[in-house]
């Protein structure tokens, strides 16, 4: 094990996969000359050259479309979207092309590509540079979606995403890039797509979360709750599609209480899917109504006070959990 940043972990994943497989290449805005806005591509152009680490024009639509086309022609492209918000510029390429080729053409061809999409709140970046949009993409059949919360998972999931023959959207929270954590040295280390992780074992309430709010807010929730004698089982979902339903159901069967916490807007968010599934399949196991926490149904505001009001509050979450007993 060694301790590195989330950003370095993703870079290691890229290096190992690009060394292993010559058909892997990466393209995006400001990745070769600048090394990526979060430094996540810094070493790549020096190692692999600017053909395989390719600066693109500001043409999100063409970047995603070209990745689909390159995948169809035998490559394994990784395309960087700069900010997840910009993926909405290329909705057609993601929703109608990348997600559908395999099914629509009767499984004649796979689309082994990855879209890297830095998402989430950073300091006051406002409405068009702060969104969590996994729920929007999770609604479209044909895509896999991952959202790691720590460096080890960041590396392991990115490697799995690159090797997967399905198109994968890899959400990486901007506020996580500089966080540090232990990562196995072994270049055969992969984190399987579709498997959650029990971040902390507990007995009284299951909290399901992912990405940055698991790393921060939910850790605080665990501490505050334990002070009050409530034992939290914290699940890091890691993969949004396909999500680890079994792990959640098993945990809920044990704790009888479910609380879902995500940074994205609560209204229509992916938490709703988890809540509905548990209600459908295990409502008899529950001793309290399912709780959901997410952002208010507004664009991300700019002003400090407003952004603070937008952020999840551990205290509020714990207050909600308290009422479940």
């Amino acid at each position, binding site marked *: 094990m060694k301790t590195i940043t989330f950003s370095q972990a993703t870079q290691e994943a890229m290096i190992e996969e690009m060394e292993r497989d010559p*058909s892997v290449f990466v393209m995006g805005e400001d990745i070769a000359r600048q090394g990526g806005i979060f430094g996540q591509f810094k070493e790549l152009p020096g190692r692999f050259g600017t053909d395989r680490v390719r600066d693109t*024009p500001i043409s999100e*639509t*063409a970047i995603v*479309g070209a990745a689909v*086309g390159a995948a169809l*022609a035998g*490559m394994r492209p990784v395309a960087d979207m700069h900010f997840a918000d910009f993926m909405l510029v290329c909705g057609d390429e993601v929703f109608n092309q990348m997600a559908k080729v395999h099914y*629509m053409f009767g499984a004649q061809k796979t689309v082994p590509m990855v879209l890297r999409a830095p998402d989430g709140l950073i300091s006051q970046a406002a409405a068009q540079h702060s969104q969590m949009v996994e729920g929007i993409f999770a609604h479209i059949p044909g895509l896999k979606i991952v959202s790691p919360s720590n460096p080890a998972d960041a590396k392991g999931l990115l490697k799995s995403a690159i090797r997967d023959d*399905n198109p994968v959207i890899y959400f990486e929270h901007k506020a996580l890039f500089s966080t540090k954590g232990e990562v196995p040295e072994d270049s055969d280390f992969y984190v399987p797509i579709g498997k959650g992780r029990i971040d902390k074992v507990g007995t009284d309430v299951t909290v399901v979360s992912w990405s940055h709010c698991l790393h921060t807010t939910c850790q605080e929730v665990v501490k505050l709750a334990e002070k009050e004698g409530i034992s939290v089982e914290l699940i890091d979902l890691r993969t949004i599609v396909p999500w680890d339903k079994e792990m959640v159901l098993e945990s809920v069967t044990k704790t009888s209480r479910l609380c879902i916490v995500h940074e994205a807007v609560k209204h229509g968010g992916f938490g709703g899917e988890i809540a509905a599934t548990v209600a459908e399949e295990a409502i008899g196991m529950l001793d309290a109504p399912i709780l959901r926490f997410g952002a208010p149904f507004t664009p991300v505001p700019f002003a400090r006070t407003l952004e603070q009001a937008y952020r999840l509050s551990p205290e509020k979450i714990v207050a909600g959990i308290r009422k479940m007993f």
Partner: protein
Amino acid sequence: MSALAIHKEPTVPVRKYSKKLLTELYGKMVTIRLFEQTVESHFLAGEIPGFVHLYIGEEAIAAGIMANLTNRDYIESTHRGHGHTIAKGADLKRMMAEIFGKATGYCKGKGGSMHIADFSIGMLGANGIVGGGYTLAVGAGLATKLSGEDKVSVVFFGDGASNRGTFHEALNMAAIWQLPVLFVCEMNQWASTTPYRTTTSVENIADRCQGYSIPGYVVDGNDVLAVYEAAKDIVADIRAGKGPALLECKTYRIKGHFVGDPEKYRTKEEVQHEFETNNPITRFEEKVLKAGALTQADLDAVYKQAEQEIAEALKFAKESPEPSPEAIYEDLYV
């Protein structure tokens, strides 16, 4: 190369072309025409569901371009894609079965008329999204360049599609990276019910190439030999590493936008006139017969064979089973 060049009628006398090539070009055009007529009549009889967009009158473009490609080259097609797919060498039975929504179709009945693909011959798929194919073709071109191959990637699109933003992103990207991509505009004058002059600021779509410093050519899209000649030179340049180009083929959409289109936006006389003066198949027949390059018997033999192949394809499609409902969940993920 100039930013816009008009490709003239081929200067090569018709007699100089090999009988094999002429037969192939004619065979492709006739097969497309008969296939489309068969699809049309069965659609109107209520046997084919969904949307069907016919290629009748534009056969010379697919036939002329594809004669310069091999199975290793890539094409990206459109909603009006049967002609491209046939010309690229796809299996008529599996195409027809797909259009009928049968399990034996290219896409196991999951695609239909607008989504036929045959990756084994480099046909990367028809696209139901207007302008959806350009960037994919650019990606295939990028893959070719990265792996050091000499494959050409061709994307077909309509004049209407050239107003999508994807056109501009793709042209620019192909140009800066000098990718082996041929953009083929099928200028059939119409985008659904809208004539191109009301939506397009330039006289020729090829004029837009000037904005990207790539060569743009215009050719008579109803003359299969002219298309063949133009594509031959351009494809050779692209294969030699000279970067992308655009070929605009002037033609006319003889049929409605889709089968069943009431066509209130234009007169029957206009369509009739275009068909009589510009039908690429009769133009070709007259030309080769006059030059003595092929005989009527040669043409008849090709026609008969196409008829037979399509009858077999139709029989196969009709007799094939529909996919089982359980197949709905198959093939979503690998």
